[in-house]
């Protein structure tokens, strides 16, 4: 089975985010980057699927769109066991809407004709939660979202889909298909030293974004970003941990009446 995993490099969740002078984006020089966590779960699911059907052969290809620096997450994915990578080079990822990014990915996926395309269910930065579904639609493939587990069947795949409030559902899909992966269905592996060494010899194919799609005007534009406004007036309790704890216990006794 040939599986493509779409991964994205996103600001690390511990990074400080500051709004830049344009008011339309964040100061990128402040940021540390990491692989989008749901995408790391998608990669893990793909690697496990390949390992389970090792006798039948199979290939895991990672695909990303982003600047040169996104090569870091590609090398991480190769070190964990992906066989090769495709890097769509683009410096304007943040200014593209989800449809525009999905068009780039779909064009690259089409050339490869995989059995499965896996993607994280949403990115931790923009969080549109749509890219995988749009790619499926652009390619005319069936899809399923919020998937925790994938099993191969004779005609396609059987997946475990998360519903709301602790409910689940099993769905059968023919392949080729697109699945967006929810976190928690598997345990993400670490790269081994051997894996890191091997990754250096694996193929990373760069593709210029301009060679995949023509420039189309965005249908949705991010005008301005801002800090959220507080919904409640929060009483901040300062001091040493001991002082703050004592102040809180007073509030819980006298104002909240729970002690």
């Amino acid at each position: 089975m040939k599986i493509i995993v779409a991964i994205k490099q996103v600001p690390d969740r511990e990074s400080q985010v500051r709004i830049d002078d344009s008011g339309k984006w964040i100061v990128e020089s402040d940021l540390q980057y990491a692989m989008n966590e749901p995408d790391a779960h998608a990669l893990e699911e793909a690697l496990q699927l390949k390992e389970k059907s090792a006798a039948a052969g199979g290939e895991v290809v990672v695909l990303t769109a982003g600047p040169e620096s996104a090569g870091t997450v590609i090398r991480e994915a190769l070190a964990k066991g992906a066989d090769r990578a495709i890097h769509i080079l683009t410096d304007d990822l943040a200014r593209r809407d989800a449809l525009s990014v999905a068009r780039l990915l779909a064009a690259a996926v089409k050339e490869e004709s995989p059995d499965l395309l896996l993607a994280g269910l949403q990115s931790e930065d923009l969080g549109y939660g749509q890219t995988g579904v749009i790619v499926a639609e652009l390619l005319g493939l069936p899809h399923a979202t919020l998937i925790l587990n994938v099993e191969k069947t004779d005609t396609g795949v059987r997946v475990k889909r998360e519903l709301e409030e602790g409910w689940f559902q099993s769905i059968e899909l023919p392949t080729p298909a697109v699945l967006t992966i929810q976190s928690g269905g598997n345990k993400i592996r670490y790269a081994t030293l051997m894996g890191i060494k091997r990754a250096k010899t694996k193929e990373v194919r760069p593709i210029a974004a301009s060679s995949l799609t023509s420039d189309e005007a965005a249908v949705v534009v991010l005008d301005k970003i801002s800090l959220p406004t507080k919904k409640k007036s929060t009483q901040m309790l300062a001091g040493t941990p001991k002082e703050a704890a004592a102040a809180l216990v007073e509030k819980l006794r006298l104002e909240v009446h729970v002690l």
Partner: protein
Amino acid sequence: MSGILVVLEQRAQKSLARINWEALTAAMRLGEPASVAAVILGADTQAAAAEIAAKAPGRVISVQHPLLTPYTADGTLAALQQLIQFESPDYVVFPHTYQVRDYAPALATRFGQMLISDVTAIVEGPVFTRQMMQGRLNGNYRHTSSGACFLSVQAGAFPADLPAAGGAAIEQFSPAIDAAQIRTIPGEPYRAAAQAVDLSSAQLIVGVGRGIKAQDNLHIVEELATALGAELAASRPICDSGWLPLERQVGSSGQTVAPKLYIAAGISGAIQHLVGMKASQCIVAVNKDPDAPIFEVADYGIVGDLMEVVPALTEAVKAAKQ
């Protein structure tokens, strides 16, 4: 082209969930209430259509077809594509549910559009606000294309009380759907296991998040919960890691709670967690990041390392109870 469609969602023949009325309120902010048509899909939509008509002005469009129940993305997409082509609306509004996340992005794509997902506010323009960077920033979005604008609204972001009186007329729309168009086979929904812990009736809850760093540190929050006589709960990453069982997860994929007191220790406050606990009467946040979104919903906040603050709090609670 005119009008506003709002696509509502009925689950398991029950009455409509609150988020549907919130989506309807959001739709009415985009135009005259009378220009809003509420859409309900299914094999049998009669009861739901009547329920909507009693509360909503404008129109109710009942889209009935045997292949629309159970839900599949392919069936829903076929039906809504035909309805939108027929109605040519300016806006198509959805509640931001898991089901909407499954098909609405593809529906927008069919019209060359992009869903503005998980909208939290609509202001003059219209400008749509949605969260970015795990709730640490807001982004203001504008629809710049001449086609229909697709948007989904976040749970709890708009009032569920409708701004206009009901009495909508119910219309029927019969889509053409062929069984061969439906490529997936959905199974019956099921629950993982009997829930041994019912957090929804707990009066006091201590919730723990990523800030706890390691499973070995969990005893710190367990001791606070014991001192308070509180139940222990967790955000998704803690249950994903297997540090606490799934039945202690609070949020959109876990339980919804509304205790007298919810202490969020090391929980940043992503919306997926907030929807499960923001109705708590009193929220206390302990977090080392002063900009963490959890402080936006907190009544009391302590900025600090939970490894230091929580043990101090446990001692202070014990002392107060003596």
